[in-house]
Structures are given as C-alpha cells and as structure tokens.
C-alpha cells in the first residue's frame, strides 16, 4: 500500500507544480480602481481600426526547418461586419491565395502549398487576431508591473487572449489555450496613428512558424467598396 501511495503523492505534487508553472505563464494583472476601468478598456481598443481598412504588408514567413520567403499580403477588414478579404501574392504579383471570411471562409484561389487543408481557416484566424478587436468586454482589465495596460478576454474553446498596450503605444497579444499554453504571440511596434509599421506573429501550435509584417500601405476603404469594384477587364488586347 505504501508502495502505491508514494507515486500518487508524487504525481499530485507534479500536477501541482505543473499547474503553478502553467499559470505563471499568464501575466499577473494588478487590479485598478473601478473608475479607471472604462479608460483602460478604451485604450485596449486602440490597436484596432473602427472602420473598413485596407492593409498592404510585406510578409516575411519563417517555417520550421529553415524555410523562409517573402510575400505581399493585401487585407481588407470590415470590423463592424467582421468580414475579412485576404490576398497573398509573390513580389512579382502572382496571386497565391485569395479568400474571404464572411461568416464562413470562401477560398477563391489557392496555389500549392496554400491549398493545404485548414490553411485558409487558420490564416483567417491569424488575420482576425492581428487586425480585429476581440469580441465583447474583457473579463479582467488592469495594469502590469511595468505599467502597461492589459485586458484579458475569455474567448471560444476556453482560450484566453491577453492584449497588452505599452506606454510607447506598441502592443502585444498573447493567445493561450485552456491549459495556459501559448498558442500565438503578436508584437506590434513603431505605431503611428494607431497603425503599426511592424507586426510579428509567432505560432506555437500545429507547427511553429512566424510572420513578420512590414507595412507598405494602410488606408480606409468605403464600406462595400470591394463589391462596387468588379475586376476590370484588360482593355488593350
């Protein structure tokens, strides 16, 4: 019996240590006065645009095993409708991937390897994470030890999203699983007029990869502008 109890005790200690380590991965939030909470929530909304916007980025992709390359990404987000239209092309202009999220993902074009199963869904999740404000109000909001503002959101599937706004207006996102494992980390820097010049996304789940987005252009788009601009046909043939 003693022989059996000892491993159980050690197992429980191991679980406790594991949970403590896991929990310690989430930043510790210092509570703030209720009166300043609305201001903190307002600051947590600052990284995200309120109106439809078009972003053009140079995207450096780093894959496991050393694969790397640069593509150009064009993304239109409509934050009110939560619609996303995303196009990835080579520097030479070849379209590798063209998909929309309008309640569901619709892929218009996907050249290998961008036609991989679930690629479109995961890409849209990454785009949403970077460019669209989390739904609802934060479950906790406050400040960190270093004075940065933090809003913590409980999102679907038990996941947690921490949005941290630093005093220099740079910001970061930590996306954690229900067991507090880091799934995504986003760091945005060189922020001007709410738009970051650089965004780095690191993914830690299915397969590790990182995306470094360098802003080429950002501009507001008229709502429905995409629908109003059917592709013009080449006219000089």
């Amino acid at each position, binding site marked *: 019996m003693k022989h059996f109890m000892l491993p159980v005790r050690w197992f429980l200690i191991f679980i406790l240590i594991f949970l403590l380590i896991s929990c310690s991965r989430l930043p510790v939030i210092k509570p703030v006065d209720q009166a300043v909470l609305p201001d903190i929530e307002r600051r947590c909304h600052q990284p995200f645009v309120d109106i439809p916007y*078009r972003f*053009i980025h*140079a995207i*450096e*992709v780093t894959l496991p095993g*050393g*694969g*790397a*390359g*640069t*593509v*150009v990404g*064009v993304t*239109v987000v409509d934050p009110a409708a939560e619609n996303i*239209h995303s*196009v990835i*092309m*080579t*520097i*030479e*202009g*070849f*379209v*590798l991937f*063209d998909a929309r999220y309008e309640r569901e993902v619709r892929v218009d*074009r996907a*050249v*290998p*390897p961008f036609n991989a199963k679930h690629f479109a869904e995961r890409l849209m999740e990454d785009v949403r994470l970077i460019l669209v404000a989390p739904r609802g109000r934060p479950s906790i909001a406050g400040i960190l030890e270093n004075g940065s503002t933090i809003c913590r959101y409980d999102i679907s599937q038990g996941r947690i999203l921490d949005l941290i706004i630093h005093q220099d207006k740079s910001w970061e996102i930590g996306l954690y699983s229900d067991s507090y494992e880091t799934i995504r980390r986003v760091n945005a820097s060189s922020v001007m007029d709410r738009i970051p010049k650089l965004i780095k996304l690191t993914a830690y789940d299915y397969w590790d990869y990182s995306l*470094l987005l*360098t802003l*080429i252009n950002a501009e507001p*788009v008229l709502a429905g*502008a*995409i629908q109003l*601009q*059917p*592709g*013009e*046909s*080449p006219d*000089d*043939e």
Partner: protein
Amino acid sequence: MEFMTTASRAKKGVFLIGVLFSCTIMLGWADNWEDIRRESAKIKSVSAHFSQEKHIQILTRPLVSKGLFYFQAPDSVRWEYTSPVKSVLLMRKGDIRRYTVGSKGLVEDKGGSLESMQIVLQEISRWSTGQFTANEHFSASLKGGRGAKIILTPREKGLSSMILRIVITLSPDRPGVIKSVKIIESEGNYTLFEFADVQINGKISESLFREVI
C-alpha cells in the same frame, strides 16, 4: 504667285514625305514572326527600368513596384525590385535564386514559389531573343503592325489555372524591343510590366547576374 506655288509644292512634298515616313513606322517591324525573329536576333543584351502594376479586385488602385531589368543572351537575367520590397532574382544557366531584404538584411529566399518564377524568367529570356513560337508552355499568336502584340496562351491545363494569357506589346519604333508584358491570371487580376530607358546591346557586367550587390 510662283513663289507661293513653289512653297505650296514644298509643303506638299514635306507632307508627303511625312506621310510616307509615318506609314513606314505604322507598318512596324513586327508584321510576322520572321521579322520579329530577325530583329530580336540582333539583341545580345538589354538593360531597362521597369514598373510593375498589380491590378486585382481587392485594390482600388494598382500596387506599383519599380525595379531594374538586365538580360544577357543566351539566358542570364537579373530582375531587381527597388520598391516597395527590395528583392533580387538572379537567373544564370538555368539556376535561379531570389534574395529579399528583410529584418535580417539580404536573405536568400528558400520558399517554394521559385519554380513558377523559373518558368517566367526562362520565358523572358526567350522573348528577349524573339523566341515566341515553338514553346513547350505557351502557344503564340501575333497581331502585327505598329505596336504589335503577341498573345501567349498556356498549352497545359495546370498552367492555365494560374495564367489565362500573356500579352506582350512590342515597341512601335524600336525593333526587337518589348514595350510591356501583361500577365493575366484571371479576369480583373493581372500584372502589367512596362519597360523604360531601354538600352540595347550595351555592356553589362557579368557579375550583375552572379552577385546580389
């Protein structure tokens, strides 16, 4: 009165010479494949500035990139972007490499999109020497005359799912010179390359096709 008549005749003569000269230009140098092959065969090297306009539905204005193009017969190409993303494609003896300036400086691209670029650059090499027909990837048709156009249509279904057709517009007044290339991927989705400051048969350092900087 006699003076007026002479002046009038002279004017008419100048006018006629002008018309004839214009007609000669209008006839162009690219009325048939043989003309094109003959003129293009004289081209041993090309250097030019290019602008690239990407037209696609998601953009209300085209995305413009700029760069430099170098070609040395038979098959060396340097395709260099100076903005908005600095990048250099080098093709020499069938070997192709791409370098892009990123967070770690100039880094060789190890992505998988180079295979398609290899096809395109090999085509550009062929076009630069007038080899439009007898092509394994594309069938070619010619609309001759001034500012002649060559329309390339993919032969294979796999390629036609990526490229509907390519329209090459030849320079109206410079034999052997390509004015623009339009790559149409689908209706409303095309890339237009336009060449300017084209230098023909100038000396190009061999190192430009070997070294990035």
